[in-house]
């Protein structure tokens, strides 16, 4: 592996952008990534646009062609991707594979989402699925993981909540974050309950936003500065075998191991991690799947400060989904943006010292007690 590099990244601040359109946000992120890479639009050989919900919520389809056209990219193959919360990182994997296969020298991936629409309720995994019809909503799936985790490992509600305190503290340092105010443990625990035991502040917000990444071949990267190497770009899905273990997340463990194998590293080699903390319990389970600690030890990691900025292995220094916000189509690329920023040493107040190797971990959608999609992207300076 290691056949491609990140040449540039672009992000717009996440939050409520009621007045902005999907195309407007996506094309601004694309413009910023092209500027950051210093690459002419005419050099781009593949465009991938990722979005999770625009066809359903906005009635907009094949938005990629509109977005890329706004930044002077046309005539080339353009693909529109939907893979729930991993839509953006799935687009990254497709672009990486096209470069690794020698099909193109330069590819751009843009992810955008517009979720702040009046009347939009909780997200689910598809209206026609039995689970959805039986009352499954996304926070509830994670709440059941939390209930089981507390039962099996004796974790406390306060331990779970400490993840939100950490990520919100990180978000204060990130000018792109949806939430810029810190919260206390008491505030997290006393915010309204969404699904037992998860309170509102333990759930990521639904955000608007966009992110973009320009990838290039190694040959192209030799002519450029500030590029970051891609050591692995993994996309996988679940087996959905019954019964599913809610706390030993098969696809999560398998996907992380695939990422480590492809990159030729282990968890001890990581300096910085962005993971899919859609809910506090999710980050704890991801610590364990990533091998940052053993099964059942994740709840203690955040409490001990090991995963905060300045700790042993900082996780979600961008604020994560809980602090930076969660526009699903953009999230996987915002994670890559953060890791690239860290590996370039451009993290400012949230810079992890001497960060050389980072991992962006993302998961999306629910099916039969497992995830629908998993991505792991390992980057190294």
């Amino acid at each position: 592996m290691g056949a491609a590099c990140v040449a540039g990244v672009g992000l717009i601040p996440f939050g409520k952008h009621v007045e902005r359109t999907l195309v407007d946000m996506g094309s601004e992120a694309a413009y910023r990534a092209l500027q950051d890479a210093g690459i002419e639009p005419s050099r781009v050989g593949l465009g991938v646009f990722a979005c999770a919900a625009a066809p359903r919520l906005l009635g907009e389809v094949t938005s990629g062609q509109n977005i890329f056209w706004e930044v002077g990219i046309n005539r080339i193959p353009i693909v529109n991707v939907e893979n729930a919360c991993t839509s953006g990182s799935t687009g990254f994997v497709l672009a990486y594979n096209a470069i690794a296969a020698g099909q193109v020298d330069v590819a751009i991936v843009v992810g955008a989402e517009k979720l702040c629409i009046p009347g939009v309720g909780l997200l689910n995994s598809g209206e026609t699925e039995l689970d959805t019809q039986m009352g499954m909503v996304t926070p509830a799936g994670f709440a059941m993981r939390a209930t089981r985790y507390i039962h099996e490992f004796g974790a406390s509600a306060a331990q779970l909540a400490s993840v939100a305190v950490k990520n919100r503290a990180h978000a204060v340092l990130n000018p792109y974050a949806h939430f810029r105010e810190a919260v206390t443990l008491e505030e997290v625990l006393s915010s309204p309950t969404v699904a037992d035991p998860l309170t509102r502040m333990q759930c990521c917000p639904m955000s608007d936003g966009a992110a973009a990444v320009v990838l290039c071949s190694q040959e192209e990267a030799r002519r450029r500065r500030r590029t970051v190497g891609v050591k692995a770009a993994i996309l996988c899905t679940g087996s959905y075998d019954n019964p599913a273990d809610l706390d030993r997340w098969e696809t999560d463990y398998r996907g992380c191991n695939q990422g480590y194998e492809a990159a030729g590293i282990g968890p001890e080699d990581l300096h910085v991690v962005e993971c899919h903390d859609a809910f506090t319990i999710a980050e704890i389970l991801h610590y364990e799947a990533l091998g940052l600690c053993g099964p059942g030890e994740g709840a203690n990691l955040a409490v001990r400060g090991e995963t905060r900025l300045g700790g042993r292995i900082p996780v979600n220094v961008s604020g994560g989904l809980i602090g930076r916000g969660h526009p699903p189509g953009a999230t996987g690329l915002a994670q890559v943006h953060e890791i690239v920023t860290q590996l370039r040493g451009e993290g400012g107040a949230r810079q992890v010292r001497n960060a050389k190797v980072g991992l962006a971990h993302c998961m999306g959608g629910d099916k039969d007690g497992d995830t629908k999609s998993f991505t792991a992207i390992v980057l190294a300076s």
Partner: protein
Amino acid sequence: MTREVEWKSAEDEKLPIVMPGILDIPGDGGQPSLLGGSCPSCGVRYFPRPPRCRRCLGPVEESSVGAEGTVYSFTVIRTRAPLGLPEPYAIGYVDLKESGLRVFCLLDPQAVEEFRIGVPVRLAVGALGHNVHGSSCLRPYFMAPAPGPGGVA
């Protein structure tokens, strides 16, 4: 208290089941059970019944996957409820005694605070919320603690 037979009122009986083919409701008012499938060649059990076996792609026979089990995990949803479900409402994963399957299902909306991991539960059917077409419908749910003989809680 006989909550589990409430659905048998004349009006509820006419209601559609939330999704066809997932419930076996005996005409004599007996214990309803979840209807799934079983592959005659692989022996794999399914809920709900898939169009073909996901292992051998052969036909799957309709079969009951069970009516009793224990709670593997659960939660109570205390925010705006979808599909016209009660607020709050409870859901969980139940390990079925008969088939060994871990199934996702609603839990008794009139006893949302009563569920714990490991408690025995039994299936009931009731008019709960609306379906994709917006009409009232029957949904299965598990009751806890399991009612004694005769179906009376």
